[in-house]
């Protein structure tokens, strides 16, 4: 009713307009209030990681105020960053993630190009199939995959179980379908005239891909790379299943299996390790947030 009155009276009715803007101000204040509340909840665990990582074991077991550091120390960081074992975990994780990103891109860029531009028999079905594959969770496949690789070792004598590099073959099943899917979306949004022009100028398919599609769809490419990297870095189930020796572990599994010794929890070091493990994705996110979010939303809204 009130809005109707404004509409009729036009700009002359200042009073009504004023009350509406006062409502807006209050809505804004409430929004900030709740956003602050939710942001505190969202950031509570990482902040707590940071707080604990700065404490010595003595301070933790003294059970003083857990929300404050009374004697900040970097000894946990020093200990972990000079421990060969921890650096090994870090190295394994980094090597695997980088290799998986490379493999993922090598597979999904040509596939996405073919599926979005070169219509062929079964291409539409394949594109949908790729998306469905993305929905198959790791927890459904880990047992048969484990058995498959064990049998593969028995048959060929090439032992892949308990080798960190076996994960390089397995992680693409998690990254390739999604990356292909979002790349199809990005490629499909490129105007057809662009590649037609390239072909008229005598470009081959390969040249069309490298000279036109990859530069134009670069934001999508970055989003897909970030996705592939974070998924490989964060994956926990497969390394837990496939690797057991301490020198073959990746970061998340390594922290959990080596820093927790029996019932003794060295929380200062565990939190330091967790924070260092969370750092690479967080750093990437901090610098490339827009690409990260674009990739996240593209998966569901495109296509």
């Amino acid at each position: 009713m009130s809005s109707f009155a404004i509409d009729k009276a036009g700009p002359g009715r200042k009073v009504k307009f004023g009350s509406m803007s006062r409502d807006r101000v209050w809505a804004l204040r409430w929004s900030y209030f709740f956003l602050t509340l939710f942001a505190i909840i969202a950031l509570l665990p990482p902040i707590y990681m940071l707080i604990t990582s700065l404490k010595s074991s003595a301070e933790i077991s003294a059970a003083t105020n857990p929300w404050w550091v009374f004697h900040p120390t970097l000894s946990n960081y020093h200990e972990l960053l000079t421990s060969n074992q921890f650096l090994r975990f870090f190295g394994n994780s980094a090597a695997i993630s980088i290799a998986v990103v490379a493999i993922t891109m090598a597979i999904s860029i040509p596939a996405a190009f073919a599926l979005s531009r070169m219509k062929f028999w079964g291409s539409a079905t394949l594109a949908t199939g790729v998306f469905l594959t993305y929905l198959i969770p790791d927890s459904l496949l880990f047992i048969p995959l484990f058995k498959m690789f064990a049998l593969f070792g028995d048959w060929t004598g090439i032992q892949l179980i308990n080798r960190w590099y076996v994960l390089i073959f397995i992680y693409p099943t998690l990254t390739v379908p999604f990356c292909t899917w979002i790349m199809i979306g990005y490629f499909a949004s490129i105007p057809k005239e662009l590649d037609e022009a390239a072909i008229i100028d005598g470009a081959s398919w390969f040249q069309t891909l490298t000279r036109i599609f990859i530069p134009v769809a670069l934001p999508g490419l970055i989003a897909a790379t970030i996705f592939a990297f974070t998924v490989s870095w964060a994956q926990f189930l497969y390394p837990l299943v496939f690797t057991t020796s301490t020198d073959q572990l990746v970061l998340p599994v390594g922290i959990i299996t080596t820093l927790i010794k029996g019932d003794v929890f060295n929380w200062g070091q565990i939190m330091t390790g967790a924070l260092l493990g969370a750092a690479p994705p967080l750093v990437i996110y901090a610098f490339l947030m827009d690409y990260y979010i674009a990739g996240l939303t593209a998966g569901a809204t495109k296509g």
Partner: protein
Amino acid sequence: MVDVAVGRGSVKDLRRASAATRLRYALKRKSTVAFLMTLPLILLIAVLVIYPAFYAIHLATLNKSMTRFVGFGNFRFLFKRDTFWMVVEQSCIFAITAVIFKALIGFIVAHFAHNIPSGKQRKWRGMLLVPWVIPPAMSTLAWLWLFDPSYSAFNYTLGLFGIAPVSWLGEVGWARFSVILVNVWYGAPFFMIMYLASLKSVPDQLYEAAAIDGANWWQRIWYVTLPMMRNIIAITTLFSLIVTFANFDIVRILTSGGPLDQTHLFATWAFKIGIEGSDIPLGASISLFMAPILAIAAYFILRDVTKRGNEA
């Protein structure tokens, strides 16, 4: 769609072939190239996704030492065990409760974020998405430490208000609450981002029209926002239902299924039986129970995807 079907050799072909054969040649050539480009993808999916999925069905019909075919023996064994029904119940409670809360919180937070001036949204969105960015195994460790019974931050804080310490992960009810809480914390930002993106695509004119018609805020949400966001809500919910149902990391690290197997999900129980207990066939049978929910979700998503494909 055979509009740009010519490759490099086309000028030469142009001279010697008639129109029909030239077209056929080019088509054949293009589809061969396209097939070769998708071949690695097809191989990867066939060998490391489709084959293991069927291999899991095969494994599920073998006995423990994998020497004898037992048909549905493993399933019959599972159906007789109380733990199995407990896992079914807990998986459903866990997935449904967590998804509902994730969707609700995501929706509410997205509205608050949408309310503030767009220049400041980026900063807030950035902070609110942090739980989704941290590897879940790492953040769950922080939660494990927050829940710690004797030195924990939560019990200390409760103690300040004179509330007795809570055994967060030791008591069945609290343990179930805790795993759901951590899952909601981890997953709600994803919903928030999706809903925020979709809120931005609702045209302002619709809200103006609703305001002129005298709609209050609740009616605006019910009659304008929700119908406009129906698609995105459906697809994120289905997607999240699969991921939550198949969750492993959080429960594994927080409780390992305890106390007394009461917080096991299909994934963690399958891991315990199949890998830790080295009864691979039984583990495979357990993990196969995640397939029905997957099939249902796949059906709806597929319907949605093909519908959109036709619109485009």
